[in-house]
């Protein structure tokens, strides 16, 4: 039923470079409104580079990225943000010179319809307690929560989450899974990068598998069982 609507985000022939090194070689992915789509792949496959290229954070890039019908490949990242895309980076990017509340309030509102600060604190009660602590004094899990929380306020509809479970304890990973499901219910569209396949399986509608800067496979969550052997091979598990 999803297939009928035009995708919210459509990436075609995306190429990206860091200086002279050619990292992405024609990546193509679609994300439809309301979906949670996961990019899987081994270390160095180009998942982060894909996300950053969509966000406009890789200087040298070509191909096509179309968001809600607009071609955004040549836009600067601040303009892409204003169009309604927000990133939660792999290294989390919590600012040490800002306290928790300032970190939370930092990203400017780009559209109406984001969560209110109260709603965010309900979703992440830990953050409220630590409102005035220095951002980087939080635990790894709390910092991850904060990195997700701060992009929910802005009115962005498409969230790019880069390995939100990396280096976190199972309990926290579970909490993040619950959060992502709630965000999906709230109508957010999510492009998720994950190496933790078991986690991704609990939240994602669809998976793309990346290798050496290319998408080598696409799998629906409903067909997951029959593809497990193949997936394990891709990911080298």
């Amino acid at each position: 039923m999803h297939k009928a609507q035009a995708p919210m985000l459509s990436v075609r022939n995306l190429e990206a470079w860091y200086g002279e090194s050619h990292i992405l070689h024609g990546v193509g992915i679609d994300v439809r409104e309301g979906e949670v789509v996961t990019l899987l792949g081994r270390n160095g496959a180009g998942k982060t580079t894909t996300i950053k290229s969509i966000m406009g954070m890789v200087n040298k890039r070509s191909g096509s990225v179309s968001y809600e019908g607009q071609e955004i490949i040549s836009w600067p990242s601040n303009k892409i943000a204003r169009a309604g895309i927000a990133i939660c980076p792999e290294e989390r990017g919590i600012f040490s010179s800002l306290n928790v509340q300032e970190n939370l309030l930092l990203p400017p509102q780009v559209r109406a319809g984001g969560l209110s600060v109260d709603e965010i604190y309900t979703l992440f009660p830990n953050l409220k307690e630590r409102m005035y602590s220095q951002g980087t004094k939080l635990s790894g899990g709390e910092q991850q929560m904060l990195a997700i929380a701060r992009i929910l306020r802005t009115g962005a509809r498409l969230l790019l989450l880069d390995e939100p479970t990396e280096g976190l304890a199972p309990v926290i990973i579970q909490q993040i899974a619950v959060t992502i499901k709630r965000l999906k219910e709230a109508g957010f569209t999510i492009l998720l990068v994950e190496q933790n396949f078991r986690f991704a399986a609990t939240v994602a509608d669809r998976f793309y598998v990346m290798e050496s800067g290319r998408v080598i496979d696409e799998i629906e969550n409903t067909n997951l069982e029959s593809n497990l052997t193949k997936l394990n091979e891709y990911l080298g598990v």
Partner: protein
Amino acid sequence: MIEIFGISSQALFGQLLIGLINGAFYAMLSLGLAVIFGMLNIINFCHGALYMIGAFVAWMLLNWLGIGYWWALLISPIITGALGVVIERLFLQRLRDLDHLYGLLLTFGLALILEGVFRQNFGASGLPYRIPPELTGGTNLGFMFLPNYRAWVIVLSLFVCLGTWFAIEYTRLGSYLRAATENPALVQAFGVNVSRMITLTYGFGVALAAIAGVLAAPIYQVSPLMGSNIIIVVFAVVVIGGMGSILGSIVTGFGLGIAEGLTKVFYPEASSTVIFVIMAIVLLIRPSGLFGKGA
């Protein structure tokens, strides 16, 4: 007359006052340098020249257009700040991805050019600028005579410095600034035009220098060399306070002004070198400066 350690209180407080005045200028100038360094990663060597231009703009406003001190205090920072914006857009922007050193060399060259232009046109000797009539005279505090204009310089400079500090530490705009100092790419990816913010920050730092220049005009004379005379000391202040620390530059600026004044009372021979001695000691003990973070 009261004497402390054989020194009259008159002399002591007199030198303290001079120290405070100098400190006020050190603080305003090193604050601008700190703001610029934090955001642009550039050691702004033409800061002294821009301070000089701030004073000259006030002088030109008065002598060419008949616009007095109070308007100059507003107009000169705007004009000089706009010049800063042009410098940033024309030159500094192109150096953003390069090493520190390029910015330092470029601004050093600019300082030489700017000072040369003014020396060519106005000569090397100072031009007088009168204290505004509202601030002439002084107040007898009992233990010393306080000229009103000097009191005004200290008050306004404190106000400007603390206002800047407050804006950076406690406002939304300030949180953008602090965040962009840490990770400009991410702040930009949140939808902030960081490039414009960098340009405006430079303009603001320059405007701070221009305010200092206008304040200085009636105290020191307006001269093409006024900037290079003070800027060497200001760089020492920045090194002592810790490159890029906002509050550090303010506290160190005033503190070192006072230290210099006191040295003049107790050991006049060292008064012109005391700041550099302190700098050497601080560099030995805390290479990142008194308020600097990390190494």
